[in-house]
């Protein structure tokens, strides 16, 4: 769906040096969007006839308010596109394609662990809200560079959800010192020791949804597979069309027969089952 999203909120998220922004768009997308889906946004107000930057920017849907017809996008100013996007003012309209791709699927029962690295936290918020609404137990593991980043990137909003939160920072000033994967590993071994998860689909089943740097997604997937914990990963790739037409954004999966296949992050993803993803860069 192609719509003109009215900018109703566009503000800094936390302190300026974090270069984070919160953008709320009013439009019909909110009615159909699911957690884990994304939109492709034109970074300049539709009224500006400029071809540079040329392409839309893919941004995850961080919050969905169907009642108010609003979706929230959280983004970091990364390069030219987001830099220009950051200048768009309230009241202006942005051309938005979406909702795009397949989001996360909720487990019927049990505990949903969210594992986030850095700004990988953004798409997980909508998922947490959704999971809680469906009566699931939600637990967050979030690793970030330092306390400042985590506070600025929305910690308060997460705390407001009243769920258990396990933080990791490189300096250890907030949460544990180290990588988020270490905390996940610790808790998994605590639960299963040398064994693997057995009561699949049982009320205490644990499943994981994760988003962040590729290396982290790979590590989390390895852990989960080791303990037989189902894991969904949200991938990123450079996009052209964002609808599956250009084959620009493929990732490599391995199918049941063990053959390597390509899938489109934009259309078949961005969320995939961790065990099917081939992490080798050269694929």
């Amino acid at each position, binding site marked *: *769906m192609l719509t003109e999203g009215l900018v109703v909120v566009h503000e800094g998220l936390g302190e300026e040096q974090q270069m984070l922004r919160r953008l709320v768009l009013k439009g019909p997308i909110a009615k159909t969007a699911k957690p884990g889906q994304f939109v492709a946004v034109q970074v300049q107000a539709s009224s500006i006839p400029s071809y*540079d930057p040329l392409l839309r920017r893919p941004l995850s849907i961080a919050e969905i308010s169907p009642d108010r017809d609003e979706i929230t996008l959280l983004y970091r100013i990364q390069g030219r596109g987001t830099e220009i996007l950051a200048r768009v003012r309230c009241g202006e309209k942005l051309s938005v394609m979406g909702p795009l791709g397949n989001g996360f699927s909720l487990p019927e029962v049990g505990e949903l662990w969210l594992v986030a690295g850095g700004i990988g936290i953004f798409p997980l918020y909508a998922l947490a809200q959704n999971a809680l609404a469906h009566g699931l137990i939600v637990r967050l593991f979030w690793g970030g560079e330092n306390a400042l980043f985590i506070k600025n990137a929305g910690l308060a909003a997460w705390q407001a959800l009243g769920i258990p939160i396990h933080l990791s920072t490189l300096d250890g000033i907030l949460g544990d010192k180290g990588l988020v994967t270490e905390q996940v590993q610790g808790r998994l071994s605590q639960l299963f020791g040398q064994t693997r998860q057995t009561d699949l689909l049982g009320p205490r089943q644990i499943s994981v949804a994760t988003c962040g740097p590729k290396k982290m997604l790979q590590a989390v997937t390895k852990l989960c597979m080791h303990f037989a914990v189902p894991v969904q990963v949200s991938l990123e790739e450079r996009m052209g069309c964002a*609808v599956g*037409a250009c084959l620009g954004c493929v990732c490599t999966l391995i199918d049941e027969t063990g053959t390597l296949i390509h899938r489109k992050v934009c*259309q078949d993803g961005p969320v995939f089952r961790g065990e099917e993803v081939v992490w080798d860069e050269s694929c």
Partner: protein
Amino acid sequence: MSPVDLSTMLAGIKLRNPVLTCSGTYGFGEEYAAYCPLEALGGITLKGITPLPRLGNSVPRLAETPAGLLNAVGLENPGLEQFIISYLPKVREMPTAVIANISGFSLEDYVQMAEAFQVNSGLAALEVNISCPNVKHGGMHFGTDPGSAEEVIAAVKAATDLPIIAKLSPNVTDIVGMARAAQRGGADALSLINTLLGMSIDIEQQRPLLANTFGGLSGPAIRPVAVRMVWQVAEAVDLPIIGMGGITTWQDAVEFFLAGATAISIGTGNFVNPQAPLEILQGIKGYCEKHGLPSVRNLVGLAHKA
């Protein structure tokens, strides 16, 4: 004033209107259906296929450049057999003209694919990509040497009863020479242009941005080169031309008609605006009305007469 006649003839194919979409940018037709109804289009050109399945290049496959896009998909496609089984049957149901696009790495490749596609397949035409610059050596040779171009077009022409559209590479010294070669080979129409060979470097990683090092440059940045080539070929060769290269607005499209294109095709422009084909169609109509032209066919080559 009676409504503008948008229909046109291209290589014996009657088209509802002269707005097509480019191979490799429009998948196999369905992907954009939610944004642009197929029945509104004059036709679509399918992703290039090869005899054998190809996984294509590694990622990154795309890099944005000023007003342009570099791509190095590497001709990923299901291969001829899969295509015939799972896609070709659908072609008849498509509410628009469907043009298949074939690529190969040997004369035999092209012939094998041409034989597989005949009029009874429901396809409107066969676009022969002799110019995909993404795959190392791939196609390039055919696309830059007039002799081989003529040879491959002639072989394809002999192998199918479908109209043949030769898609030319802009990475040549003499585009007119290539067009003449395609004509000698028996091409019924020409597609101009494919992408310009380019590259960009990630200065932080200090290595090429695309996994394939080189990529094909498309988008508004190349439009002046595309218009120039359409103009030159239109002056020298008597074949209908499908103009493409950076078309994003109706003004861009009109530029190609005036330069001598019989139809135009939209590629990267769909990424910018998935409704570009619709808006362009409207714009062309409005332009013809404003200038009192009964048919879009009256636009073709008009600027040469100035």
